[in-house]
């Protein structure tokens, strides 16, 4: 297929996914806005932790640094989290809807990727206002804007976080070809993700436990939340930043390959359930 036709095809998938996402506008807007509610409680919790510890710094982080980190993690998660992706794929396999990708000249993974991009675009559009307001009100927690190089690295790391998140969750969904139900597996993944990605606390807090820190930073999870936030806040720079981006890109490629492989094997194993 010519490049021009392919672009038109991608645009059509993207456009229809956007339209579909906008059908239930009230539910979508409410769901998006409600995600901002925990921010206030989290900021108060961080302050309480610092006050009760009686320390000004924990692993080099001040109270303001931790709040800034927490807010940046929210942005990382807005890119890397993929609600309903894995469970949706498993459900399509279980109920037989996956057949449409097997009989039509369309690539399932590419189709779902475009659909997810559309969902994310809508989410960012709706969330932009509330995000801007929160960051404006919390501007005092930040040291200032990073330089152009850091900003470029940050945007790159966010896009890679999106790709890792997408291919990792799609891979979990593909397991449905063998086990049909992946909800428990997904629960374990989300639990691990919450702890290991740095969503709960900055991974620098583990400095006192070098073995645990090595374990955490050897896994791909940190690239879903911690790494982009740490890049923006200038915690990672110079050769470490380049090395980090290379490793992050390698994880994205590894999950892309694993996802494609799982799909190819899964389709061979598929029994065409669900009528």
């Amino acid at each position: 297929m010519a490049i021009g036709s392919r672009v038109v095809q991608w645009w059509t998938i993207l456009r229809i996914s956007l339209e579909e996402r906008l059908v239930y506008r009230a539910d979508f807007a409410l769901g998006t806005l409600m995600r901002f509610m925990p921010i206030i409680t989290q900021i108060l919790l961080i302050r309480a932790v610092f006050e009760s510890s009686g320390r000004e710094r924990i692993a080099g982080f001040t109270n303001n640094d931790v709040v800034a980190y927490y807010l940046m993690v929210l942005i990382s998660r807005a890119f890397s989290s993929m609600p309903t992706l894995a469970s949706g794929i498993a459900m399509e396999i279980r109920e037989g809807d996956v057949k449409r990708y097997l009989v039509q000249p369309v690539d399932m993974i590419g189709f779902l990727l475009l659909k997810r991009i559309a969902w994310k675009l809508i989410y960012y559009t709706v969330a932009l206002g509330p995000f801007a307001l929160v960051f404006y009100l919390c501007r005092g927690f930040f040291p200032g804007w990073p330089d152009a190089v850091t900003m470029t690295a940050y945007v790159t790391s966010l896009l890679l976080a999106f790709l890792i998140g997408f291919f990792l969750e799609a891979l979990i969904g593909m397991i449905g070809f063998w086990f049909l139900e992946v909800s428990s597996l997904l629960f374990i993944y989300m639990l691990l993700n919450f702890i290991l990605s740095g969503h709960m606390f900055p991974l620098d807090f583990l400095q006192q436990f070098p073995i645990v820190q090595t374990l955490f930073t050897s896994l791909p999870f940190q690239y879903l939340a911690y790494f982009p936030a740490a890049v923006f806040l200038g915690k990672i720079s110079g050769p470490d930043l380049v090395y980090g981006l290379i490793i992050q890109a390698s994880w994205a490629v590894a999950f892309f390959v694993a996802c494609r492989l799982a799909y190819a094997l899964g389709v061979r194993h598929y029994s065409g359930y669900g009528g």
Partner: protein
Amino acid sequence: MAVIKIQDLAKTYRVYQKREGLAASVRGLFRRQHRMVEAVRGISLTVDEGQFVAFLGPNGAGKTTTLKMLSGVVNPTSGTAEVMGYVPWERQHAYRRRFALVMGQKNQLWWDLPAVESFRLHQQIYGIEPTAFARTQGELVELLDIGSLIHQPVRELSLGERMKMELVTALLHRPKVLFLDEPTIGLDVVAQHSIRAFLKDYQTKQRVTVLLTSHYMKDVLALCERVVVIAKGQIMYDGSLAGITGKFGGHKIVTFKFSDKAHADVASRGEVLSCEGPRLRLRIDRAAVTGVLGDVLAAYDVEDVSVEDPPLEEVIAEVFASAPNAGGPAESDPAPVEAVER
């Protein structure tokens, strides 16, 4: 020219066996028993271009599994198949652009959007030229009389209307081969008739090769020149619809109307299907019909007599029932071919 060539095609599924009760569920956590189910047992078939072929068979006979293999949804366990020169389970895009699969119980439309959006997406997925797309969509929409519905969200359409939209979507790229899996299932008689009339008209004009599975004999009678009866994964009959009665209908239905009353000794010449006043309806062995007619007409005053073939459904049910079990059970048979524990 043969468009579909199937040789010794077989599909065996490995199916988990869950016994009843909580204790069995707990045991199942550690040790599971599976059995192998032969859904299709080495069928061979050739379909020529432009034929409309019905796949008849009871639930679990292997009809849908065969369609799934021919459309590349599942891989076969053994055997070969070629559709328009393509091996279906290689899933080449070139093949996918030349056939369509419509399943009565599944839809490929975007539920929350008008069908016209699904048509548009289909156009892009299949790379249909804009002018050809507009022409085909216009033709199909007109034939099915759904012009006022294509801008309405799919979720607000009736089952019959949704099936019409499905058919439009499936035919937009003008497939040469069409697999229809129970396209009229669950539809009311009006919608069934409308879909049937459309399919008949479309197939006649376009000379598309169609493989249809349906439990509705009216679909088959109206549409198909050739019938393949499949039961327990094997082909039991392949030929014309009328030929089934000749081959498998071992009896005829004979109705006598006597001038006075029905006579007991006549009733004893066959199986009584009904007896109302002077009218007696009997099922009689095909070979004995001539003799019985001669005797009765000679001995009694008969006002009217008719000899009919039994209803097609009845004959086909007999064909299904006569499917041999040799070689192990198929989908509809619960006995395991081979128990596998894991």
